[in-house]
């Protein structure tokens, strides 16, 4: 009984690590595991939290990288929006 829990937790950890490789957030991870592996989000979240406790440094760095990406993506996004606007405005005369 203890063993199956341990192996289950191990599996969840494995899955979470895969999500980390995909640079997913905790919420995304919960969603993905729930959807694809039928793991209750609360379990995912709990294991995630526990992992975070055990691997503080890792998760800190991970969070940093995540935020940096977001910043980048925001820049990128705004640039794209601007480009779209300029493109569409150039198209307008045709319509």
């Amino acid at each position, binding site marked *: 009984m203890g063993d199956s829990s341990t192996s289950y937790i191990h599996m969840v950890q494995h899955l979470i690590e895969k999500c980390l490789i995909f640079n997913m957030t905790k919420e995304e991870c919960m969603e993905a595991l729930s959807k694809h592996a039928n793991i209750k989000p609360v379990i995912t979240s709990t294991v995630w939290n526990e992992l975070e406790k055990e691997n503080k440094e890792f998760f800190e760095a*991970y969070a940093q990288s995540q935020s940096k990406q977001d910043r980048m993506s925001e820049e990128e996004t705004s640039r*794209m929006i601007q480009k779209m606007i300029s493109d569409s405005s150039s198209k307008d005369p045709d319509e």
Partner: protein
Amino acid sequence: MLAVSPLRNTRNDENKGKMESFSIISSEEFPDFAEGNLLESIDFDDLFIGIDEGDMLPDLEMDPEILADLPTSRCDVEESMNTSVEKTDEDSSQRKEEEEEEDKISGSGSGSSSSKGEEIFSKREEPNAVDKTPSKYAVKGRKSSAAQAKNNNQGKRKTKKVDWTPELHRRFVQAVEQLGVDKAVPSRILELMGIDCLTRHNIASHLQKYRSHRKHLLAREAEAANWTQRRQMYGGAATPVGGGKRDISPWLAPTMGFPPMSPMHHHHFRPLHVWGHPTLDQSLVHLWTKHPAHTTSQPPQPPQSTWGPPPANPSFWHHHHQRVSNGLTPGTPCFPQPIAPTRFRAAPVPGIPPHHHGTGGQSGPHPLIDFHPSKESIDAAIGDVLTKPWLPLPLGLKPPSTDSVLGELQRQGVPKIPPSCA
């Protein structure tokens, strides 16, 4: 493999029949050729069970007397035999040109051996009253002669059965190479080896087998060389790219989508450390770290020297070229697969390099270009974990204690895991 397609010789049915029988024998004779290290992996005794019984060398269907006394003629027949078989091997490359040639050869080959073939067939007919087709004869003939061999072990064997140990074989090869493979004559080999318990006939039959093996080896090496050339082309293209890191990323993006976690990958990458192309390693490392995080304070960042463009390592490509060609498109052979598993060890590395992670509830606007990992790749990754729980943890994070997890879960209202209903 000498798996010959029977469709080849449509002109000459006779030849076709003979060819089939030869090829079937051949392909049965050399089952191990799909693997590398032929000479070491092949136990010569097993290959030719029952054949080394003295007089009969039925695989080439030759009169043993000729074999014993006239090495040159044997060589000729052997050559024509082997070339006819070989030509079928090279079928894919130069069909039209060789069709004529090999018709000639097979014509002459079958012509010369047809009489012998009939002889042997008639010989085999006796123990084997059942089979009608030549090909079956060939197969069953061998088996029956195998049976015969075991029965007649005491009676008919004129030459003692030799146990070709690797050491013995090595000396044999040495001697042969000294003389020159084509010129190596059993009597001289015997002299060079200087082993008393070997008879000339032992050597002769062993030499015959050895020669066949060599042909195979050479054919395969030629094929491997082809692959190597192609890889070198790509390898040459890769090194300048190493300098332009940013240029790599879009190029890599489609292939880096998700690494194929095939079971082979673990041994696929072990040899990599031998090749480590240092500059490229670092650039790749930087590539990977650049995109997800711009700091070097990446969690578990081992100095993995296990990435490197697979250079022209013939044996490697020899073994794995099939896999590589399956998984890669031309132009991307150097990076994706070698990187894949080690990439995981290099900490959060995105599945897609230009990872603009705009979604996930952290930033408002949905990015116009969605670099979020695709559902398929996530699904694949998850499926992989579920089906192969024995796989090592990709990141190898320190696992939490079971008790604390369970405790926490209970507080959340989950009494036990795995839950009976998800």
